[in-house]
């Protein structure tokens, strides 16, 4: 029983990180039709910016992590907005070129990170209270799991409120359905592209920070390895749907944890791919229709 609880909460924590990456991917694809392969690089760069900043400020690990995270998130959002403005926008409506640019950018950014900081993992500042465990029904749960889950829940609520109650959110939801019609109402839909990229970059950087806490370190390949699962989450959840993404992220995180433990270690990834195949066979459009909500 205690193992099951540990697995469940760890799976939810993993799902939380997948959600943070996948929500941005899903909105970007839903609105712009761009599969953003550079999204993992936003995560890596955000995590490295967090780590680098933390080594340049004083205080305990908690303070270092907090200041580092603020800088890391800002860097993630700015980088993403810049990428949209400088690389994606000039290729407006040329989706294949846009995707190729994001692939190239992903390679360039991880090469850059490797060149500057090397291949070795860098130690993340993690305060003790995040490493400590809390006992729930006999299971000792590392506290960072709760931070991951709580952060993802907050981001989910924030994104949902943004989509539902703001003018830009309205434009994004409409744009996911029919971009051309949004422009035919006199709206410069490209402004919302930049905004969605920035939000996606911020959420990815947040996943970078949390993964740094979870693993205790950051390495140049982190973004790429998480991105693959985030893509699977997006496909299962249905492009452009935040609710669908959240459900799919939780399911993928749990399936991965359970399969790794109850079947055999390493089977978790295979189980996720099987799940993807099953969902695509049953519902080719993913769990949710292509509507942002």
């Amino acid at each position, binding site marked *: 029983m205690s193992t099951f609880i540990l697995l469940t909460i760890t799976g939810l924590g993993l799902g939380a990180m997948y959600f943070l990456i996948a929500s941005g991917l899903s909105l970007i694809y839903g609105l712009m039709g761009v599969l953003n392969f550079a999204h993992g690089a936003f995560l890596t760069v955000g995590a490295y910016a967090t780590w680098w900043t933390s080594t340049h400020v004083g205080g305990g690990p908690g303070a270092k992590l907090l200041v580092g995270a603020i800088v890391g998130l800002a860097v993630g959002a700015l980088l993403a907005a810049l990428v949209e403005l400088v690389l994606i926008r000039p290729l407006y409506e040329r989706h294949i070129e846009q995707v190729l640019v994001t692939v190239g950018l992903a390679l360039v950014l991880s090469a850059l990170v490797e060149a500057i900081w090397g291949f070795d993992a860098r130690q993340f500042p993690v305060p003790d209270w995040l490493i400590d465990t809390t006992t729930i029904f006999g299971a000792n749960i590392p506290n960072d799991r709760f931070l991951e889950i709580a952060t993802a829940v907050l981001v989910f609520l924030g994104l949902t409120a943004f989509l539902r109650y703001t003018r830009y959110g309205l434009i994004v939801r409409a744009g996911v*359905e029919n971009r051309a*019609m949004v422009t*035919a109402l*006199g709206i410069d839909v490209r402004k919302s592209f930049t905004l969605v990229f920035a939000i996606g970059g911020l959420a990815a950087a947040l996943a970078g920070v949390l993964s740094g806490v979870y693993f205790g370190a950051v390495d140049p390949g982190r973004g790429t390895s998480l991105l693959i699962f985030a893509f699977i989450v997006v496909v299962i959840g249905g492009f452009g749907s935040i609710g669908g993404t959240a459900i799919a992220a939780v399911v993928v995180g749990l399936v991965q944890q359970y399969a790794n433990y109850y079947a055999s270690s390493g089977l978790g990834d295979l189980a996720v791919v099987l799940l993807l195949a099953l969902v695509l066979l049953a519902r080719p459009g993913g769990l949710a229709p292509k509507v942002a909500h």
Partner: protein
Amino acid sequence: MALIEVRDLHVHLGESHVLQGVSFEVPEGGVTALLGRNGVGKTTTLRALMGLVPRRGRVSLAGAELTRLPTHRIVQRGVGYVPEDRDVFAGLSVDENLRIAERNGSPRYELVYELFPELKTRGAQKAGTLSGGQQQMVAIARALLNENSVLLVDEPTKGLAPLLVTEVAAALERAAELATVLLVEQNLAVVARVAQQVVVLDGGRVVHAGGAKELLGDPERVRALLGVHGGGH
């Protein structure tokens, strides 16, 4: 001077050269109907005016060139668009479909709700669950919400029951008091009721332009140009 001037407009879609030098003028005020057989390029013409398809040639509104502007800037010059398949946002409520169309601080909700009271009572309903006629009302309402000098309206009565056709025609008459309307319409009874001018497309060009009464009063001509019988059926 004409409000809209279209000169030598060319559009290629895929392999086909759909518009091959379309030229016509729309006088200020009233309704000008853009007619022609299925597939001659009426929708494409409106989409080209809106900047929604790549086009060559000149389009000017009140003397100002539009061809270099992106779609949203053309709209901001005072052009409202009611597309052929309504294109309401299915996942948005009726209220949200209208709210997203607001271009300034004084949207004309009284006008819209006076013409289509149903939109008020159904405000919270998802537009995707509306009937075709109700969706058409949303599409027209979006264009009427703002003060436009021009409305481009594409087959607003397509697929509607007779009673709704009458309602939409009445709304078009009202719209024509507020803006110049360029209307694509297959239902010649509606054309006879609301339009003063007609422009007929065929083979990628304009083959006739003139008064609506003159053309519709000449069944031979109507059959030759449109391949249908005149007299409203």
